[in-house]
């Protein structure tokens, strides 16, 4: 039923996004890119997709400049869609930006904590996470002021409320703050998708639940793996796991008790996807001998867990386009585009540093 009226409000946006999706680089494009000898060649290969944005770059640009320009394109397109979005879609797109906002706010809090001139930091903020009151964050000079008068005004205020006090901002590691915020954000987004009048029960809720559950599980697993050997206690760690997802609640409980990679593997055994990831990365059994094979120059053949997660995310995003009448295509498109930017940066980096043997490590789903 929802399909009948969806196009009345959101048909144009959906069409545009599907058009954008068709402009994404394909496997053919990527294999052309990997043949390049210089960054200039890469630039040339990218010109059909990114032409006008890359035109301003000087010859042989740095990889970071390349990444910035490609991000600029994503931002420009995102802004266009956002400007045309109405109703639930506009709210949905706001939710998309919250993730970047959390990163930006964390950055600014770091700056304030160390009493730096936060104005310089504004340039480093992710443009998608820009919100109107963000420059105001720079006005605050101490953390209490920041918390009491500035953060309250941001869209992120609900995520701070109830879980973080201003003492926490001062004392806790910024990474913990960031992950707490992200957890609250994911839960809120999930809740919104499944309860909002115009969204609940539609394909949007269906697809977004899958995506967000995967995102939640990914974060839980990553936090667990990355916290080994740090001063993060198990109780604190448990607080960072989102309260939904395929691993919730048994899996997260087991994750919170895990002491090593083996423990994590046992925790995720119940979900076949994640179990497969662990089997493929060779983490199971070897007991953390190679937590990730991605680095070190050697053994680049097997993929790291991180890679597998990215791969899975891309597949979910790709499948999202098989559904019609849903907001989730926007999410999927943003994620696909982000991965594309990462791929381009990676390939450019490999070419710039003459490390061709690892150049095939990008993730392409089309």
């Amino acid at each position: 039923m929802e399909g009948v009226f969806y196009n009345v409000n959101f048909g144009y946006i959906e069409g545009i996004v599907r058009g954008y999706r068709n402009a994404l680089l394909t496997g053919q494009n990527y294999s052309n890119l990997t043949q390049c000898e210089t960054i200039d060649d890469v630039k040339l290969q990218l010109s059909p997709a990114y032409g006008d944005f890359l035109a301003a770059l000087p010859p042989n640009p740095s990889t970071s400049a390349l990444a910035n320009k490609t991000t600029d394109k994503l931002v420009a397109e995102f802004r266009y869609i956002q400007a045309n979005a109405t109703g639930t879609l506009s709210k949905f797109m706001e939710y998309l930006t919250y993730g970047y906002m959390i990163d930006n706010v964390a950055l600014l809090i770091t700056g304030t904590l160390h009493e730096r001139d936060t104005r310089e930091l504004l340039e480093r903020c992710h443009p998608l996470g820009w919100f109107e009151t963000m420059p105001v964050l720079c006005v605050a000079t101490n953390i209490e002021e920041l918390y009491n008068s500035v953060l309250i005004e941001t869209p992120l205020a609900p995520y701070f409320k109830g879980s973080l006090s201003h003492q926490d901002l001062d004392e806790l590691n910024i990474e913990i703050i960031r992950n707490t915020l992200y957890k609250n954000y994911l839960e809120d987004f999930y809740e919104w998708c499944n309860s909002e009048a115009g969204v609940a029960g539609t394909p949007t809720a269906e697809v977004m639940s899958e995506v967000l559950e995967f995102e939640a599980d990914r974060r839980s697993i990553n936090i667990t793996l990355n916290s080994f050997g740090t001063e993060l206690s198990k109780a604190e760690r448990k607080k960072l796991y989102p309260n939904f997802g395929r691993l919730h609640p048994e899996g997260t409980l087991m994750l919170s008790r895990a002491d090593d990679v083996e423990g994590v593997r046992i925790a995720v055994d119940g979900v076949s996807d994640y179990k497969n990831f662990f089997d493929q990365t060779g983490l199971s059994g070897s007991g953390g001998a190679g937590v990730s094979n991605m680095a070190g120059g050697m053994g680049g053949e097997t993929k790291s867990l991180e890679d597998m997660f990215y791969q899975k995310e891309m597949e979910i995003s790709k499948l999202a386009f098989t559904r019609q009448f849903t907001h989730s295509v926007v999410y999927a498109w943003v994620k696909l585009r982000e991965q594309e930017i990462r791929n381009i940066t990676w390939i450019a980096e490999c070419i710039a540093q003459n490390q061709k043997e690892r150049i095939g490590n990008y993730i392409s789903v089309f």
Partner: protein
Amino acid sequence: MSGSGAREPVFPTRQSLQVMKSKLKGAQIGHDLLKRKSEALTKRFREITRRIDEAKRKMGRVMQIAAFSLAEVTYAVGGDIGYQIQESAKQARFRVRTKQENVSGVFLPQFESFTVEGKDDFGLTGLGKGGQQVQRCRETYARAVETLVELASLQTAFVILDEVIKVVNRRVNAIEHVIIPRTENTIRYINSELDELDREEFYRLKKVSGKKERDAAAAEVERTKKEDQKSQSQNDEDVETHDVLGDQDNEDVIF
């Protein structure tokens, strides 16, 4: 010739000859010692050059891997984490201390790197994603910095040794080509001057003795003459009568 070449401004006396001779001896011993020192230093220098070569090659490789692992971090985290890391690092974990090494009297500083055990300041960076890459990147860079420290200590030693070897070689050459020839020249000069003096003295003595002989001979002649006269006059006294005018003392004035 003794006059040619530089020599020291001394008076050609036996005393200064002695001084010069001891000076020459000292210069030769010093030359030997310095030469040996220079050889020892050069040996060390060569070894350091070789190790610098190795270290530089190693640095190239390590830095490449390190830069690449940073690229991996960028890929995994999907953004710039530079600022956050800069801010969360409060204390240096990787530190350097120096000690001195004595190579034939030259003090070479040696840098030693060590890691302060304890909590790492950004252990939680990339907690959500990419944490493993961040940690590995850090390890790779720690190795790269280790290589840099090693290279720095070698380079410092290289520069210092280079300087010292130059100074020592300059001294060796100065002694070999300036001081020793000059001292030898001086000794030759003094010797020749002394010989000259000797010859002069000898000639003078010969002259004096010749004159003395002559004088002695003249005196002898005089004496015999006198004796002859005396005996004659004695004989004369007997026969000769004195001038009656008593002017036998006056000689005849002959115009």
